[in-house]
């Protein structure tokens, strides 16, 4: 307790030097929490949106389906029967049939994926009810990304060409029944959504599907022959990898900031020990053990992190809190890069994040404070009292100033 009191008095007594260190350290604190908060917020938003728009509570994939291998698409469709059909009828699964096609907006040729979805489904957020319309042309809904790349808008009619299950060309007009906005590019880019029964008829694949999406909150999906179960961990793994790589990139920024702050504290400690030799000698002469003096100087250095936490809280809480409420707008569109990213990100500052950051900063500050303080243990009290303590490293460091 005495060490803490003494340390605090010495720190405050050091004036500007202390506050400069504290300011730099608090900046590192706030930036680390801010950066990690943005990534956590992005992660939460992306996971929620992917579940909401695409993944549901997990999916069944036809055994040949591989979204990254176009070779598989022609054969990856099977009849939905047995337990799967029962689940579809109960409303816990919705089938999606996927095939390839070509559209000709304004005479330009564009390869796309054609996805068939039940207009009455409520499992994913795709506004499929807009497909429930009577029209000679095939009703289709598209995302804003697709609308922008194909220069299409609601009410536009465009020719779609496709090949049926036998490979014969067929063509017909589609009418854009709606344009939806989503942050999930995998349900938007280069694809159109049309009624499932129309696509099954067009492809001569009655009752067939490529994937089946389960209702959100589904705990487990039973294994079914000819279909592979894809749980949420798998379906969200791409997003997890992106967040992990971004976190690793952010570590470099934290590292630089922490290095700056810790270097300042380390130097302050070295200088303090050199200049305060008589004081150290005095402490020992008055009965303090060398270990107690080392502890005093270590606590003094570590107190920087306590003050930095307090200072960081003074300006960080309102600043970061405001961002968490209002969100941060990014000039880039994530869907252009094929990643799920909302136009406005809401950082998420969890208690765990704050506690871990505070502990890391305190621990590293304590270590860099203890490092130079170890030299005190080598001092002879008589030399220290006379200010004659000499150490090559110390001397070099002081001489370089």
């Amino acid at each position, binding site marked *: 307790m005495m060490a803490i009191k003494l340390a605090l008095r010495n720190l405050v007594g050091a004036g500007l030097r202390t506050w400069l260190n504290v300011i730099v350290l608090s900046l590192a604190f706030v930036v680390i929490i801010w950066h990690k908060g943005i990534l956590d917020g992005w992660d939460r938003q992306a996971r929620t949106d992917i579940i909401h728009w695409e993944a549901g509570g997990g999916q069944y994939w036809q055994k040949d389906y591989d979204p990254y291998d176009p070779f598989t698409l022609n054969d990856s469709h099977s009849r939905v029967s047995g337990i799967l059909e029962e689940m579809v009828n109960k409303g816990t699964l919705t089938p999606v049939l996927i095939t390839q096609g*070509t559209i000709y907006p*304004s005479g330009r040729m564009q390869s796309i994926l054609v996805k068939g979805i039940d207009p009455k489904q409520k499992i994913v957020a795709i506004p499929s009810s807009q497909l429930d319309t009577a029209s000679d042309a095939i009703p289709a809904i598209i995302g804003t990304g697709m609308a922008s790349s194909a220069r299409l808008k609601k009410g536009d009619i465009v*020719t779609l060409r496709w090949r049926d299950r036998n490979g014969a060309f067929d063509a*017909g007009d589609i009418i854009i029944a709606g344009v939806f906005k989503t942050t999930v590019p995998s349900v938007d880019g280069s694809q159109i959504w049309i009624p499932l029964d129309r696509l099954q008829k067009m492809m001569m694949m009655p009752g067939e599907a490529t994937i089946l999406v389960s209702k959100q909150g589904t705990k487990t999906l039973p294994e079914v022959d000819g279909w592979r179960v894809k749980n949420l961990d798998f379906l969200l793994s791409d997003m997890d990898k992106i967040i992990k790589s971004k976190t690793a990139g952010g570590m470099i920024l934290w590292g630089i900031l922490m290095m700056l702050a810790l270097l300042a504290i380390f130097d302050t400690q070295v200088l303090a020990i050199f200049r305060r030799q008589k004081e150290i000698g005095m402490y020992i002469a008055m009965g303090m053990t060398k270990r107690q003096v080392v502890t005093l100087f270590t606590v003094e250095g570590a107190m920087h992190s306590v003050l930095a936490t307090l200072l960081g809280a003074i300006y960080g809480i309102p600043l970061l809190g405001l961002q968490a409420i209002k969100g941060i707008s990014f000039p880039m569109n994530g869907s252009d890069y094929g990643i799920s990213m909302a136009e406005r990100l809401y950082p998420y500052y969890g208690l765990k994040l704050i506690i871990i950051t505070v502990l890391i900063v305190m621990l590293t500050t304590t270590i860099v404070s203890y490092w130079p303080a170890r030299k005190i243990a080598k001092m002879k009290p008589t030399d220290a009292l006379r200010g004659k303590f000499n150490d090559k490293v110390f001397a070099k460091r002081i001489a370089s100033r």
Partner: protein
Amino acid sequence: MKLLLAILFTGITFAYAQYPEGKDILKKVDQNLTSENRVFTSKMVIHGKRTSRTIESKSWTAGDKKSFTEYLFPAREQGTKMLKLDDQLWIYSPSTDRIIQIAGHMLRQSVMGSDLSYEDMMEDSKLINHYNAKVTGAETVDGRPCWVLTLTAFDPDVAYQGLKIWVDKDRNVPLREEMYAKSGTLLKRLTLADVENINGRWYPKKMVFKDVLKEGDGTEFIMENIQFNVAIPDYIFSKANLKK
């Protein structure tokens, strides 16, 4: 009224009776256009919105299953090679020194910006094997009298389920073709010209492809130095030949 109907019916029957069997014409067309194998150099002129590009190539073809093409001009495309074996297609690009297989979406992309897709290039078989033909009229194309044949596919696997072709009455070579989707939508139009007698068969040396759903003036395909039924060594149609 009855008399009028009888005259009309007799007239129609008489008119159709004058038409030859579609199947016979189709056989003759196939005899002219298909061969055991052929080697030719060609020019592909792609007419874009603003400019036209010419691409020269040399091709070796055996039946409708094997084909190998090497691009010779322009410099940018020189050395690019394309191999078709049955329903598979590979492309070798010298700039990347890689062989890639064309599949899925990519098969629907146009070949070097032309009106031909890779899929179109892979469709090349005898019409008689896939279509029922009916002569539905007689018209003149480029000053030459032609039979108009409506072809309906009996094979569900064939790409174009409906075709309409205008066949030169004397030379049994199509001078115009229209390709239809199952729904009846016109997809592509092909104009054939510069018909020459090569080794006893009539063959159009110039073809103009037009994807009617796409903007542009189409793509000209001009064949030069065509040789039929010459010996082509097996190694030509191998993947190893792509990198040679």
